[in-house]
């Protein structure tokens, strides 16, 4: 597990085809690791008859809604949490 709870992370901005479980609307956005769920078979290869190995750590990543949607119509304190596999995350610049 590369990240720990509280780490600042950025979702990779890759545009990848196939059974990708990282929604496009959070790609390139930065947030924080809210929880580590453990390791799971990688659905990106599992979906195509492969074993989905090596397993990928899965994290619950939190975002401020206003960081995801520049014109978010709700409150500035509202948040969004998405489950993201480790290979989609990079450490946020400037974080420890």
């Amino acid at each position: 597990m590369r990240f720990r709870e509280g780490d600042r992370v950025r979702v990779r901005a890759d545009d990848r085809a196939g059974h990708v479980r990282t929604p496009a609307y959070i790609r390139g956005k930065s947030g924080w690791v809210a929880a580590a769920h453990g390791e799971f078979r990688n659905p990106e290869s599992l979906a195509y008859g492969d074993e989905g190995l090596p397993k990928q750590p899965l994290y619950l990543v939190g975002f401020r809604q206003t960081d995801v949607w520049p014109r978010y119509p709700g409150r500035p304190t509202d948040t969004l949490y998405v489950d993201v596999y480790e290979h989609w995350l990079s450490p946020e610049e400037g974080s420890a």
Partner: protein
Amino acid sequence: MSQGHGHGHDEHAPIRHDGHSSPLARRARALEALLTEKGVLTPADIRSAIDALVSRTPADGAKLVARAWVDPAFKARLLADPKAAAAELGIDLTSYARLGVVENTDKVHHVVVCTLCSCYPRMLLGPPPAWYKSLNYRARTVADPRGVMREFGLELPPKVEVRVLDSTADMRYLVLPRRPPGTEHVSEAELRSLVTRDSMIGVSNPQPERAHV
């Protein structure tokens, strides 16, 4: 469910395509035929697996919520290890995906969506309603959750943090809604009947008395 909020219509829509001609349906039938032919599965196995999937109802979710409302120690166990807590009430979730239970309070309100498909805590709520799978709900809940909840009749105070959970991967999420005010003397069995499916998705809150339609 009310027809006024723009999500309820699909549930009664007539089936216009029988699905027999779609490539996915043909692929599924080919796989089914192969598995049966090779003796991996019998048609009865397939039938009973489908029955097991669709026989789940929100009653199991409501059972967990009502117990959590009356028993703080159980609530703590439910939030920490949902499957173990469910097992205490005779609900076996061992064969299902990982489950997270999130608690709504006067400070945080959770609402669940799956923007990529229709991931849903079927093991506790049964099959998802048609609106949950609609593009409209999936696209708008992540971008304007307060607007979507307003259509379900829920207006949250500005000071409450709205927390959207997009269940994109191996986790399923169940919302533990707030116990309605004025139900302090209501029995656990009666409380169960107040716990609605929608309140466990997070688009509404349970009401002290169920509205009669």
